[in-house]
């Protein structure tokens, strides 16, 4: 059996190196491959040790591969976050099933074994149902706004208490039925946990659920007495927790505010009903504005990605640059649907890496920018995040585009952004609105600028 343990040790080392590699741009891709190699080694090793059902297991692995590869290959880059959520969810479900199955088979009972089983089943179930809800939110199958059930907070606490009681009963009674009930309670808990999280904050919830699944896997390692599961699961649990904190920091808000903020948010005040006017312009107006600018800042958002307008944006930027106008892209840490998502999307469109500027590079000099082109972004330029403590996104760092000389806001409609928050920038006298699909507008704009 020694060589089996050695193979598991090698796999664990691969996972550590994978995480290490994924943290540095240069070795990220290599890191991922090392992780995959470690996984292959671990899986093949475990397969050689089993007593029976080998063929059926092989069939299940082939079926899983047949389902996983096309899903991962064909998903559009804009839809990657919900795909990750789904992969995370099935992992959680698998962990819960493993612990449940081991419990049903009734192997060496003991308090620690039972505690680990209970934890795996509970956390795995929470992770599964929570991930499914995040998927539905990001896919916009259901509303992206925080969903507050009547007495939702009380309900959540109630289900949590029931789960804890069920967990204790399982420990005392060794009952299979109670363990299944615990899994169901976990599923309910996961749903209740994610429902109040607003659309823009869902990625944080995914990251946290990812860490949860890691912990469930680690706990299942205790159930099976398998050190590889303990090491790998714990690695993901710990790094996922840190990553969740880093993401929350990038949004400038404490984690508790992100997860439970909806319970405390005051309803938006009704005083904003006053007559506010917006100024919408034509493509030609904007073309002239751009043609006489010296510096232009493009702030892309998810709308740009959805319209597949990355290439049109790059062409416009190149045209402007050929006329001696400096063009930069302001990339908000949470632009898109996940931190770093927009960088991936623009990289896909061959936008030069040097032109991607972060908040701290842009904001100090934003007063001298002639035109800011907001393409399909909304929340990341909402001055409410800076000025209105009652705003649900208050505290999130933004591009201070209201301090630039002029703003062109490309939007499909007056609909509020993903976070469902009204944006006062739309009513700013400096702002010109250009309605329409981002790609369509940019293409027309490109033609119009050529005429100027």
């Amino acid at each position, binding site marked *: 059996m020694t060589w089996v343990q050695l193979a598991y040790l090698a796999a664990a080392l691969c996972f550590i190196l994978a*995480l290490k590699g*994924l943290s540095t741009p240069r070795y990220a891709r290599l890191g991922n491959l090392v992780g995959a190699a470690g996984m292959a080694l671990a899986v093949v090793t475990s397969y050689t040790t089993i007593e029976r059902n080998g063929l059926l297991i092989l069939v299940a692995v082939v079926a899983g591969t047949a389902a996983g590869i096309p899903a991962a290959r064909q998903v559009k880059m804009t839809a*990657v976050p919900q795909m*990750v959520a789904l*992969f995370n969810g099935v*992992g959680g479900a698998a962990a819960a099933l493993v612990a449940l199955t081991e419990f*049903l088979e009734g192997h060496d009972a003991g308090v620690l074994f039972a505690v680990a089983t209970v934890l795996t089943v509970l956390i795995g179930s929470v992770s599964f149902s929570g991930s499914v809800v995040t998927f539905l939110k990001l896919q916009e199958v259901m509303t992206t706004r925080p969903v507050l059930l009547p007495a939702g907070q009380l309900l959540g606490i109630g289900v949590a208490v029931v789960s804890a009681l069920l967990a204790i009963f399982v420990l005392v009674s060794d009952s299979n039925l109670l363990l299944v009930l615990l899994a169901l309670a976990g599923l309910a808990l996961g749903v209740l946990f994610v429902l109040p999280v607003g659309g823009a904050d869902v990625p944080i919830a995914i990251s946290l659920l990812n860490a949860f699944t890691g912990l469930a896997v680690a706990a*299942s390692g205790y159930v099976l007495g*398998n050190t590889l599961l303990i*090491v790998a699961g714990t690695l993901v649990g710990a790094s996922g927790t840190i990553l969740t904190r880093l993401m929350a920091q990038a949004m400038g808000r404490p984690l508790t505010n992100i997860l439970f903020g909806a319970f405390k948010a005051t309803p938006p005040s009704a005083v904003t009903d006053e007559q506010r006017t917006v100024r919408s312009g034509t493509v030609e107006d904007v073309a002239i504005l751009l043609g006489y600018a010296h510096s232009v800042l493009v702030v892309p958002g998810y709308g740009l990605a959805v319209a597949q307008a990355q290439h049109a944006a790059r062409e416009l930027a190149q045209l402007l640059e050929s006329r001696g106008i400096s063009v930069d892209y302001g990339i908000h840490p949470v632009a898109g649907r996940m931190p770093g998502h927009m960088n991936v999307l623009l990289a896909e469109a061959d936008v030069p890496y040097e032109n991607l500027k972060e908040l701290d590079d842009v904001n100090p000099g934003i007063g001298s920018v002639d035109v800011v082109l907001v393409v399909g972004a909304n929340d990341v330029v909402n001055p409410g995040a800076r000025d209105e403590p009652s705003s649900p996104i208050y505290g999130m760092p933004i591009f201070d585009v209201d301090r630039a000389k002029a703003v062109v806001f490309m939007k499909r409609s007056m609909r509020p952004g993903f976070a469902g928050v009204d944006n006062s920038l739309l009513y700013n006298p400096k702002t010109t609105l250009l309605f329409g699909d981002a790609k369509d507008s940019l293409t027309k704009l490109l033609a119009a600028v050529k005429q100027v």
Partner: protein
Amino acid sequence: MIELLTIFVLAVFVGFEVVSKVSTILHTPLMSGANAIHGVILVGAILITGQADDTLTLVLGLLAVFLATVNVVGGFVVTDRMLEMFKGHKR
């Protein structure tokens, strides 16, 4: 049992350490990569199914194997696709 606990505690520190200095650009791929790694539950699923001797546990085990495989394979492939996007710019 104390050995397992030792392993757990050490792994926590390693996990904290390896990702402590990651830039925002890599948050999404890192999350996705970590996501693929917890698919190692596939090993657990295989072991548990490999000793199943009645229909119920066999079915549950096979379901776990299937789901865990989706997690592993999908996770690594989608992470690779994301990172592939970055490659072009280091030229």
